[in-house]
């Protein structure tokens, strides 16, 4: 909560963690509720979007990546991008086979 801008040894307060946890629970209840409603082809998109938001909260705050060395963020982007490329290439192969 305090010293939000200090870069190194950044210590997040208990309150921030609890708020993030509450947000994660809220998103969980939203995704469960939405799953009961028929959204047709958007169902998967909505479920994955909510999962992505939850991941961003966990990675940024719980896993501290927002406050840590920049290089960790670079690693994360590279591995995420690698995964994305593998997915896209596989689906190209699969769909146009």
């Amino acid at each position: 909560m305090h010293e939000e801008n200090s870069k190194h040894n950044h210590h997040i307060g208990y309150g921030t963690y609890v708020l993030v946890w509450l947000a994660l629970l809220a998103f969980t209840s939203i995704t469960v509720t939405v799953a009961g409603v028929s959204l047709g082809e958007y169902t998967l998109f909505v479920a994955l979007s909510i999962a992505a938001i939850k991941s961003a909260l966990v990675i940024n705050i719980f896993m501290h990546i927002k406050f840590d060395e920049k290089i960790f963020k670079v690693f994360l982007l590279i591995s995420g991008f690698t995964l994305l490329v593998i997915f896209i290439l596989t689906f190209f192969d699969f769909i146009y086979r």
Partner: protein
Amino acid sequence: MNIHNESAAVHHHVHRDDIGAKMGMWLFLFTELLLFGGLFLVYAVYRYQHTEQFHLAAMELNTGIGTLNTVILLTSSLTVALSIAALQKGNKFLSILMLSLTLVFAFMFMINKYFEWSAKFSHGIYPGSDELLSLPNGQILFFGLYYVMTGLHGLHVLIGIIILSTILVMIIKNKITFDNYAKLENSGLYWHLVDLIWIFLFPLFYLIQ
């Protein structure tokens, strides 16, 4: 004598590289990401191929127990984060309490998993069972992926329990302290990854109706 002690302390300090340790942990986490990523890729292709069968098969899964386990894992992620924060502030007691709670949640997760899988087994749905093999191909694939992916995730929870228990003992014995908490932090990262994977497993298996 004094000088000797001081140089020993400095020497000890130099040999610690917390950022290096954390970087190693992150690199390991990315191999984990690609391991599960491969499984998610298999899931994506088969779901695309057998959309209807995946929906039918997913009806068999217990959304209630899946939701409960989601809440349990999210809460355990909070407690491990609080445990780190508490130790950084020098509150050893709170840190131990929060880490113990994390372990309790981890066990609760595995107990739920046990009941969930037992129920499936008693309905004759387990890899290689006659009941399962009599189903259409898409449903066999769904349950195969269900067992492999939630099973591999469950294995990670078990490993997490072993790691976090070790860390707990080290905190109690003052091997991990408020100014030397890299091991606790890195174990926390591992635990958050287990939570992250579940965040995706949950909607993909339990919420497709």
